[in-house]
């Protein structure tokens, strides 16, 4: 009896994964521990090894296919063994109403569809936004001749209404379509048509830019570039999560300028003595300390209930080449400045390398988004679902400032908190950012902490 290879469950909240690559072909011998395939979860990529020995008999889910965890994706066994009747992978289970560990037990789960205390990338995606399923959309009924004519004509037959049995598209339907759409009037260069066929571009939908509207290679290339493409899992998750947060959370924003001159000087002094701290480490520490003073910013709400967290799990938004991830420093309020520095550096490094484990990206209670290195005056960030605020840190710039009745040039950095108005009032947010500012401007505090 062949062994079923199933999609693993790489993270606590992961419900489905996409196959990125098969490293074995059907018929290849497989040893225990051989990497069979690579998957993309909503957070990271990982390799899946075989627990069995034998031959890869059958691949059920092709590259690009997305299936629920625990679904069978392949069979490994002895050559010639019968493969069990393939059961279609079950649909993803209905989204559970998650109850955050720290939410009050009375939280009305059924009435709380907004997932709670999980960070940006940790909520399962509702089935409705799940991308390409392993089975293609219901195949159009089309005769081989009609298909060939469509292909040779470089057109897309999917919109053609078939007149054959059961709506089957016949060659004459394609011909009628071509005539009705004025196909004979299309002028196209030979190379452009070859390219359109290869790239599956419907030339009826391409506007030619050549003389007399002739379609050239450039026009087809443009159509290829403009063709809608399925976004990566990461971008889909970002889209879904941020839309949900921005449309369901009443955001408001409070900005203060922070005079960083003294802290920068202190940091330089410490660096000369060999201390590793970056300005970011100071900001992280200041935020952790301030969150303990303003617990509303370390809470979460669904609009009916509110839950307070006793620990600070600080998310750090890290931009990647094509998206972002938010690694979480757990129990940040228990850590010294040195420990914060080490943990943050390790997590950010893993994030850049795409090596974060799913659980290193979940459980955050507040997030910092730092654009300091991107030369910006100020910006506002979108709160991660389940959190009550996010701090946007902008670049430090030489700025004329009035001090003691005179204009001085100081290094000024603007910070802007985005707050969920359901749990945070305006005065609290003002107090919060000013408390962070006071800490960052207090060099004596840092001499003590470092």
């Amino acid at each position, binding site marked *: 009896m062949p062994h079923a290879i199933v999609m693993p469950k790489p993270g606590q909240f992961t419900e489905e994964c996409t196959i990125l690559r098969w490293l074995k072909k059907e018929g290849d011998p497989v040893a225990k521990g051989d990497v069979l395939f690579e998957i993309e979860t909503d957070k990271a990529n990982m390799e899946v090894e075989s627990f069995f020995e034998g031959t890869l008999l059958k691949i059920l889910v092709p590259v690009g296919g997305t299936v629920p965890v625990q679904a069978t994706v392949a069979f490994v066994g002895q050559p010639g063994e019968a493969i069990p009747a393939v059961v279609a992978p079950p649909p993803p289970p209905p989204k559970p109403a998650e109850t955050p560990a720290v939410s009050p037990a009375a939280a009305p789960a059924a009435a709380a569809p907004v997932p709670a205390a999980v960070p940006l990338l940790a909520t399962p995606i509702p089935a409705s936004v799940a991308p390409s399923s392993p089975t293609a959309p219901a195949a159009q009924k089309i005769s081989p001749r009609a298909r060939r004519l469509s292909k040779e004509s470089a057109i897309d037959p999917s919109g053609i209404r078939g007149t054959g049995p059961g709506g089957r598209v016949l060659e004459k339907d394609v011909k009628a379509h071509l005539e009705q759409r004025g196909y004979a009037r299309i002028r196209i260069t030979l*190379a452009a048509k070859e*390219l359109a066929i290869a790239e599956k571009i419907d030339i009826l939908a391409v506007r030619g830019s050549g003389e007399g509207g002739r379609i050239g290679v450039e026009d087809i290339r443009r159509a290829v570039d403009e063709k809608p493409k399925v976004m990566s899992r990461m971008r889909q998750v970002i889209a879904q999560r941020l839309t949900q947060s921005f449309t369901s959370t009443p955001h408001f924003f409070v900005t203060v300028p922070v005079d960083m001159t003294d802290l920068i000087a202190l940091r330089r002094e410490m660096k000369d003595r060999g201390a590793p701290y970056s300005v970011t480490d100071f900001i992280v520490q200041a935020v952790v300390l301030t969150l303990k003073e303003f617990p509303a910013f370390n809470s979460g709400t669904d609009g009916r209930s509110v839950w307070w967290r006793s620990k600070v799990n600080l998310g750090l938004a890290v931009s990647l080449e094509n998206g972002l991830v938010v690694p979480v420093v757990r129990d940040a309020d228990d850590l010294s400045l040195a420990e914060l520095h080490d943990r943050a550096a390790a997590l950010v490094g893993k994030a850049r390398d795409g090596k974060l484990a799913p659980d290193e990206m979940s459980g955050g209670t507040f997030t910092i988004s730092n654009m300091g290195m991107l030369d910006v005056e100020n910006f506002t960030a979108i709160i991660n679902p389940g959190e009550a605020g996010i701090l946007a840190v902008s670049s430090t710039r030489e700025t004329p400032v009035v001090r003691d009745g005179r204009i001085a040039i100081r290094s000024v950095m603007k910070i802007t908190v985005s707050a969920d108005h359901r749990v945070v009032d305006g005065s609290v947010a003002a107090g919060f950012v000013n408390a962070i500012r006071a800490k960052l401007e207090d060099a004596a505090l840092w001499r003590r902490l470092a």
Partner: protein
Amino acid sequence: MDSYDVVVIGAGPGGYPAAIRAAQLGAKTAIVEREAWGGTCLNWGCIPTKAMISAADLAAHVRDAAALGVRADNVRIDYAALLAHKQATVSKLAGGILSLLKAYGVTQLRGQASFQTRDRIRVAGADGESTVRASKVIVATGSTSAVPGFLPKAPAVIESRAFLDLAELPARLVVMGGGYIGCELACMAAMLGAKVTIVEMLEDVLMLLDADARREVRRSMEQHLGIRIVTGRGVDSVDAGPAGARVKVGDEWIEADRLLVAVGRRPVTDGLHPERAGLWPDEKGYLRADGRNRTAVPGIYAIGDVNGGPQLAHAATSQGTIAAEDACGHRGKPNEALVPGVIFTMPEVALVGLTEAEAKAKGLAVKVGRFPFTALGRAIAAGQTGGFVKWIADAAGGQLLGAAAVGPRATDLISVAAVAIRAELTAHEVGRTIHPHPTFGEAWMEAAHAVSGECGHLPPPRR
């Protein structure tokens, strides 16, 4: 003050077609020329060199014709008659330009044009001065040979324009610069009997060509024409005397009757005062323009060599036409991207579109189909089997992206390749097109088959 819709400054291969096109479109048009109708191309460039190269080429072919059963002993060059043929060619074509301009009603203004303001241009000529008003101005003032400052100013140190007017062919010629102008004139002089040395600073001559084409031309220049080619070294200094020059290259002094300087060309804007119209040349002196030849000043266009684009007469002609149409309110296509190049060396070379080296630099996946004239009936019959043609095609769809030809009639053969590439034909379609037999042009069809390794007139490709 006379007012014009369009005033063209410079009557070279860019300017005069621009004026004719503007007039065709109904614009009241004037053209200003300070020196000679037809510009460098007609007077000191493309045309006179071809008159002389044709003679030299003919002499070389006649000398080589014994194998074909033609004996012409004691072939001699009458250089004075050759120069007269050159002058007659130039005069005939210049007369043609003048009568065309007249037939289209273009006002001809002789003299130095200079901007007074954005729309006023003073023309100072032998018969006095006048100022005209111009709604649109097309600057087509061209370029001139660049001569490095360290060279002595002496009769023995000349650039291409003076070379063409020499009453006698120098017996010993050193050519500084192995670009296409230097190589063309070197081949011509060698075919007419001069002892020629080319000194090129780069690693090879004709660096715009792919290595296979360069190899073919260089071999012929060295082995057939006896030209000495020194590469990777520059001219260090020159001692010029009354009768000749000594040219120092590395440790060696080369004796020459003339040193021909062909190291590039620089834009001509002296006396034009474009700054009075608000138009400032760039740091190299070019009047930069956009893809429709519009400068930064509305209503002023710059075409041809002066705008820093490809320094080729046919590119200037195309740009002039496009600029004239834009000036007359016909907003059309931007400049043509596909500019063929032709080099009248021995053998001739021509190219259009991408070279293999460019395709490689761009990271494009291409296939190359090459067909040598040694395998072509017509070439063997003519006794001209040196060289080849080749296509560079997109590896996936077979779209023709570039072509090169080296050998007999290469400069004429390239036009059909330009048409095929611009029409975005594929190698397959050119291969299927029936080419007349027996002709040199058949080589394109064979090379197109060779792109897919299916040329039946070549042995199967080695794997």
